[in-house]
């Protein structure tokens, strides 16, 4: 050891101290760090420290063809990649004037909703693990794997599908996959009461999560909170309803809300959303059985595909909140500029810093998981 390790550090005469929380920490959701200043175990100040996962997506996308970027966009958010593909594809369709066939629209809705269920199951497991309930994690992840198998059958990949392309989807559904999806949904519904017993009726969860990390509706609107976190504070705001895309106007579903705005309310919203996603998927299965036709509109040669000049902003409701893509074309084969509006950036930086203030050290990981922030998307 070098001597600098043994130097006695002169602390200021104070009961406050600073702690570096992460990035090598199992409670943190991904590679992310928070500097917290503590008095005892009460947080006086929290400063988010991101940048560990920065890859420079917006610059990389300017250097690749429009069609090549399909492979790049799902990697922005790892647990929930499909909304990124959908938002990018719709931005390109808006610029290029492409019309998506009806069957492709229904398939896209199916993929979006399966991805939402997967992501909520992941969060459900991770959130329980931060307060020491590892059974939930094992159950949630094994349940998610059933849906990943469906993804693999449809798209060929478990995590990064690259399935939704501008103008439709990459290939048609395999034979009999709708029956297997229905069976998986039955299994999910069968196990939902067990999850309810294990997590939402659990005294440990209620004691730890109730009143933790409260966001009032006024603050939520001021801080740019979207998605399940905003609905947990009481506002029924959902891009699927407010700014409908694809075939969502034809579907029946509710927008669940809770009024408390704490960690428990946010998890309750996610649980209700999974039920609504199952309801949507059942309608989609029924309609997909009756719709035949092309799955993609004819595209020009992708290597020499010049998108007409213009700009487009599209938004999609992901499991984390509102995802937006702002794409500008100068008429060339590559984007002039693409800006990504990710929900986690607001949740993990400005919301987390404010919500942690006055909280306890042991609740840091739980609050971060209940906000469902996705560090790869924060740093991009």
């Amino acid at each position, binding site marked *: 050891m070098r001597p600098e390790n043994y130097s006695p550090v002169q602390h200021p005469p104070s009961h406050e101290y600073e702690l570096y929380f992460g990035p090598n920490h199992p409670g943190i959701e991904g*590679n992310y760090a928070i500097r917290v200043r503590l008095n005892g175990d009460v947080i006086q100040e929290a400063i988010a420290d991101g940048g560990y996962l920065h890859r420079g997506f917006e*610059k990389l996308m300017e250097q690749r063809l429009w069609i090549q970027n399909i492979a790049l966009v799902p990697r922005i958010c790892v647990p929930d990649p499909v909304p990124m593909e959908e938002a990018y594809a719709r931005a390109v369709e808006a610029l290029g004037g492409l019309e998506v066939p009806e069957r492709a629209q229904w398939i896209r809705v199916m993929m979006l909703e399966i991805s939402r269920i997967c992501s909520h199951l992941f969060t459900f497991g991770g959130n329980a693990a931060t307060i020491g309930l590892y059974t939930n994690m094992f159950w949630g*992840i094994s349940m998610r794997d059933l849906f990943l198998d469906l993804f693999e059958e449809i798209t060929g990949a478990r995590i*990064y599908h690259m399935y939704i392309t501008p103008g439709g989807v990459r290939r048609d559904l395999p034979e009999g996959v709708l029956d297997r999806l229905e069976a998986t949904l039955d299994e999910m519904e069968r196990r939902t009461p067990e999850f309810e017993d294990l997590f939402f009726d659990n005294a440990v969860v209620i004691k730890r999560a109730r009143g933790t990390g409260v966001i009032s509706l006024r603050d939520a609107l001021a801080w740019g909170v979207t998605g399940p976190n905003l609905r947990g504070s009481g506002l029924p705001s959902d891009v699927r309803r407010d700014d409908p895309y694809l075939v969502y106007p034809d579907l029946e579903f509710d927008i669940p809300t809770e009024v408390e705005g704490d960690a428990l309310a946010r998890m309750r919203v996610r649980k209700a959303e999974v039920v609504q996603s199952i309801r949507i998927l059942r309608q989609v299965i029924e309609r997909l059985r009756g719709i035949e036709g092309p799955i993609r509109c004819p595209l020009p040669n992708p290597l020499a595909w010049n998108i007409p000049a213009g700009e487009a902003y599209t938004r999609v409701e992901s499991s984390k909140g509102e995802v937006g893509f702002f794409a500008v074309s100068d008429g060339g084969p590559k984007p002039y500029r693409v800006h990504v509006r990710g929900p986690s950036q607001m949740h993990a930086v400005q919301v987390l810093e404010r919500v942690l203030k006055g909280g306890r050290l042991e609740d840091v990981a739980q609050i971060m998981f209940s906000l469902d922030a996705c560090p790869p998307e924060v740093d991009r």
Partner: protein
Amino acid sequence: MNDQVPVVGEERPETCRAPDAEERSLWRRVMDQFADHCRSRSLFVLHYCTGCGAVELPPTITSRFDMERVGVSPMVTPRQADLLLITGYLSVKTLKRVILSYEQMQSPKYVLGFGSCTINGGMYWNSYATVKRLDQYIPVDGFIAGCMPRPEAVQQVILDLMRRIDSGQANAWRDYYLDYDTYLGRQAALFGEEWHTPTDVVAEARHYGYFGPGTTGVHTARLKNYTEWALNQIPELLPERGRNEKART
């Protein structure tokens, strides 16, 4: 405490070497093989997930693929971990933390690189923020190709690593001691000339018996300067240093 303060310019043997397998006594060979066998059956994985490969680790560890049945389990501290999984791309900021974590781990230690990003940059081959080749900065025992590697692939590479530990072939960690000067030079080229870590790798190389001609060189000479500078900066250590020098003379 006095003995732990390194004295600048102290005379030490230039190289030292642990005996090769055939040079060891029979008793030591048997004990080493037994230790390797045990070591390969209880790998603790450091709980540090650098990139998107982390999303396939929960399925690998939990019910469905269940790596605990072969003795692989997560561990939260670097000091107690054997295996460092580099799960995906590394930004420069993350690589610093990876090197700090790697140097804190006790030898023998093993590193596995996940996905194309650790091999040649993968999807981010022209990104300004990521490190393209992991094995330039720390020695790596194995790579998994693909993006994203499936849980079966993760299992396969870990089983392969266990087989190589058992037969005494997973020795990449020795390269870090034997070629520390080269590794440090590459790290300093990326992070800047001021780069140094709290771990004294040169002393560790002597401890483990892998102090070779490549352990010290032009780059580690800078560390010596830093140590002298630090000694002069910390007034509390100066009397001890004086006492130490007096003891030598």
